[in-house]
């Protein structure tokens, strides 16, 4: 009798595992499809039914990083010129009959994303850690109201805030500048950072600080030498969250930047090749852009729940 029950349990166990694996696979299909498309040779991209197996080509990656022009009829390179081509020029020529003119727009947008993301993250962490420490350790008049106010700024829909911000930035000449987006992302992230970091600082036993102050440490010394090192994991996790937010942000970047300070999300969906919308290049760009976020997700796994609920749930 017991044996039958056990067997039944085992079968249902395998069944659940099987379902989970199937779901995970189905879940990953869109991602796999994009990676698959990004390695597809030009002629296979619009094939129907979609080809899964093909000779992989990196020409899509070359195309997303470069600007190209089609060779005019009769102006195709001679055999000798072809022999002198660099390997990447040859790949592009063979697939799309194009000539590489210069480095494309993606590297600049990528750099913009990195600059804006990291500077705003640094500012956010500095402001956020100080404010979180203040709220965690001191009596502040109207603390709950202030914290509510700080959180509520984060809940505002970007599309709503962007109208007045657009006018303000235009008046100040901040549209399409790095500074403008950095300020905006800092303001939007700082509310998040204060809430999450306050949670982390609340968890540090206050006795350390009291002991240090008895030993003659000043408040600032306590903050620098005890609180910051103790909260470093939390600070790092918060920083990654802030960076990912700035990296992913679309509405502000799309409406407040045109070229100079444009980040990847505002640019990638709208880039057109000479030969119409270049889906191979779009897929390659997507893959290149999503990779950092994926790595961060894996690093952040432990803190993810805490981050996405603004520190409300500490597990």
């Amino acid at each position, binding site marked *: 009798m017991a044996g039958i029950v056990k067997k039944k349990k085992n079968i249902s*166990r395998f069944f*659940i*595992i099987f379902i*989970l694996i199937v*779901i*995970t696979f189905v879940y990953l*299909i*869109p*991602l796999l*499809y*994009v990676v698959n498309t990004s390695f597809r040779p030009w002629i296979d991209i*619009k*094939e*129907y039914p*979609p080809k899964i197996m093909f000779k992989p080509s990196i020409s899509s990656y070359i195309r997303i990083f470069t600007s190209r022009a089609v060779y005019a009829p009769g102006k195709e390179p001679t055999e000798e010129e072809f022999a002198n081509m660099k390997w990447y020029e040859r790949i592009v020529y063979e697939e799309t009959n194009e000539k590489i003119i210069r480095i494309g727009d993606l590297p600049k947008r990528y750099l913009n994303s990195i600059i804006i993301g990291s500077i705003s993250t640094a500012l956010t962490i500095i402001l956020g850690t*100080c*404010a979180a420490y*203040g709220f965690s350790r*001191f009596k*502040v008049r109207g603390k*709950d109201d202030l914290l509510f106010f700080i959180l509520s*700024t984060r809940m*505002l*829909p970007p*599309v*709503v*805030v*962007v*109208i*007045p*911000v657009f006018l*303000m930035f235009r008046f100040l000449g901040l549209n399409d500048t790095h500074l403008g987006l950095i*300020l905006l992302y800092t303001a939007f992230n700082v509310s998040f950072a204060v809430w999450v970091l306050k949670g982390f600082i*609340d968890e540090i036993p*206050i006795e350390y600080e009291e002991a240090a102050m008895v030993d003659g440490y000043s*408040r*600032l010394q306590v903050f620098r030498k005890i609180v910051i090192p103790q909260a470093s994991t939390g600070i790092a996790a918060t920083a990654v969250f802030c960076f990912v937010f700035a*990296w*992913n*942000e*679309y*509405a502000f970047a799309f*409406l407040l930047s045109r070229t100079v300070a444009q980040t990847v*999300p505002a640019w990638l*969906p709208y880039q057109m090749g000479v030969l119409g919308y270049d*889906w191979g290049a779009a897929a390659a760009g*997507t893959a290149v*852009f*999503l990779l950092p*976020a*994926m790595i*961060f*997700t894996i690093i*952040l796994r432990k803190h*993810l*729940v805490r981050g996405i609920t603004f520190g*409300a*749930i*500490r*597990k």
Partner: protein
Amino acid sequence: MFKRSRENQFNGNQLLHRSMRDTTLVRLFILPTIILLIAINIFPLFWSLFLSFSSYSAKGATEWGKNPEMIGGLNYSRILTDPRIWTKFITTAKYVVMSVGGEMILGFGLALLLQLKFKGKGFVTTFLILPMTMSPVIVGLMWRLFYNPNWGMFNYLLGLGKIDWISDPARNLYSIVLVDIWMWTPFVMLLSIAGLSAIPKYLYEAAEIDRASWWFKFTRITLPMVYPLLLVALIFRTMEAFKIFDLPMGITGRGAMAPPLLSMYLYNTAFVTWKTSFGASLGYIMLIMIIAITSLFIKYLNKAKT
């Protein structure tokens, strides 16, 4: 689950002699953040409130001082009486109900399945949460590729013909809902897992002794214990789905073919047809609705703390 936040304050006479310096210090610590938030978030909002009572277009007005004409509450009354705008409210509500509903059911279901311990569970969880931290607009772009009516994988895998999921107004709301569910089910799943793992084991053991049925255990132990976290997930997702903007933009391109969602309409009003002040008043209506949902969340948070 919810650790009670310790009131870590120095109170009493213990450190009284420092209190003067502490007040200046705490101001120094907190003020920069408050000032930044007022400058970047609050001041523009008041400006926008002022604009919402005027008729003003930002188009081409690069010079400062072009006076908005005050028209009182005309913008608001026009929004609230226009049946075409009401359909946008209804579409948004439909979007919220479908996507959040789907996410809650699937996310909680997955969390229940993931209660089982097995080798490779970590991998499965990690793979499942990948979509969550991706940029919504890029996810939209990715799905635009996937949905492509002529050569996309979606129709092929489901054995459908060349169905247009992107620009057909009868369908694209549902295709965006599907992507939203794909992207945010892991969010509900993670919160549910957090809730489920916090249920003390002895409750189940006690129920086992009483030979309670599976259904009894589920409705009397599991659901009530996970309920607070499901509520958090519900509020968060409702808020986000209500203001969804980047996903439809990513899936439908510039948004001309997008379904009539409120935020898409707001974008079109304010930045395509440049009826800035009209957009501002619509924005304020959305804002009030968001604040209502947010305050629910905060109220809940405070209740959980005490």
